[in-house]
């Protein structure tokens, strides 16, 4: 922050504004209620996802007897995720490890956008006339809820697939036996609905917190910014890895719980 004429409140407010597209009128920068697409979140997350996909695809197609750096790294990652999954999930599956790997690297990369300086992308795009830009997709609750609701749909799907008609029986009779079935049912509903909400809010809260603190550091005078900035960035490396890991871990745990019968 170098211009003197912007107050800290305005600066923060400007940085918390999404580049939104109204899907009813297809005009930029208008709130359309439900029919608003946050273009910045959407574009950044898709670009990151495609980049990761292409990179891993390259590593997979160019496999050699003596692995290069990229192949080594990819193999290490895959092996790590695979062992983590098979420590928790006890049935044979190829779907859960691949899902876990996707979640881990994608969320990690999206979180890592937080380490770019807060004004970097908005300034560059501002030259081309883009008014607002939030560069961290996971600091947008829409993105985190999209991911956690997909996981929730998978939980329901796996429950039905693994248990079939026993699923209803389990919902009604666990944990208090058949006579208290309304309470059992209520408990189960609450338990299931808390999963996507807590998954999404945990990731969103941490990333939003990190981003806001970077913005607050950016308000400080330029000659002191590097101190708190460096400290927070180093601490934030831990957080972004931890949150990506946590999202992956909880997904695996929920899916394995959906598979196991009580």
């Amino acid at each position, binding site marked *: 922050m170098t211009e003197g004429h912007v107050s800290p409140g305005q600066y923060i*407010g400007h940085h918390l504004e999404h580049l939104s597209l109204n899907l009813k009128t297809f005009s930029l920068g208008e709130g359309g209620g439900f029919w608003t697409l946050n273009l910045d979140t959407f574009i950044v997350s898709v670009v990151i996802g495609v980049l990761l996909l292409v990179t891993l695809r390259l590593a997979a197609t160019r496999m050699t007897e003596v692995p290069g750096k990229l192949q080594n790294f990819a193999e290490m990652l895959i092996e790590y995720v695979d062992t983590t999954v098979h420590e928790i999930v006890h049935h044979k599956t190829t779907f859960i490890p691949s899902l876990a790997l996707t979640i881990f690297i994608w969320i990690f990369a999206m979180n890592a956008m937080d380490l770019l300086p807060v004004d970097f992308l908005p300034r560059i795009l501002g030259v081309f006339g883009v008014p607002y830009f939030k560069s961290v997709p996971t600091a947008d609750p829409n993105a985190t809820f999209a991911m956690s609701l997909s996981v929730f749909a998978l939980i329901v799907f796996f429950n039905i697939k693994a248990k079939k008609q026993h699923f209803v029986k389990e919902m009604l009779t666990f944990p208090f036996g058949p006579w208290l079935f309304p309470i059992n049912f209520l408990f189960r509903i609450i338990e299931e609905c808390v999963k996507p909400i807590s998954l999404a*809010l945990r990731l969103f809260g941490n990333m*939003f*917190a990190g981003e806001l603190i970077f913005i607050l550091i950016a308000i400080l005078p330029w000659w002191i910014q590097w101190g708190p900035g460096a400290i927070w960035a180093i601490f934030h490396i831990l957080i972004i890895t931890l949150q990506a890991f946590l999202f992956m871990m909880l997904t695996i745990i929920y899916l394995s719980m959906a598979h196991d019968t009580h």
Partner: protein
Amino acid sequence: MEITSIVGQVQAFSVLSAGLLISFAALGTAIGFGLLGGKFLEGVARQPELGPMLMVRMFIVAGLVDAFAAISIVMGLLLFFAENSFLSNALLAVKPVVGA
């Protein structure tokens, strides 16, 4: 005169709530992390060979402990530094009455 007292009141309560949000979040995580780290050290002291496994589990729980406190702290910081939405809402509400 009335409006100044209303603004003052809203601001005072905002400051108090921001302080509470930040301090209780810090207090909660501090206690949680203290317990967690202490138990981790105890476990490692008892069975050092389980260290790496316990470390991973500790980080999982640390992430769980940390998460909602971070949200609370950020809400407090927003109240402190960004535009106070309670204040602007209160000003909007009194606008028709005062006629300013």
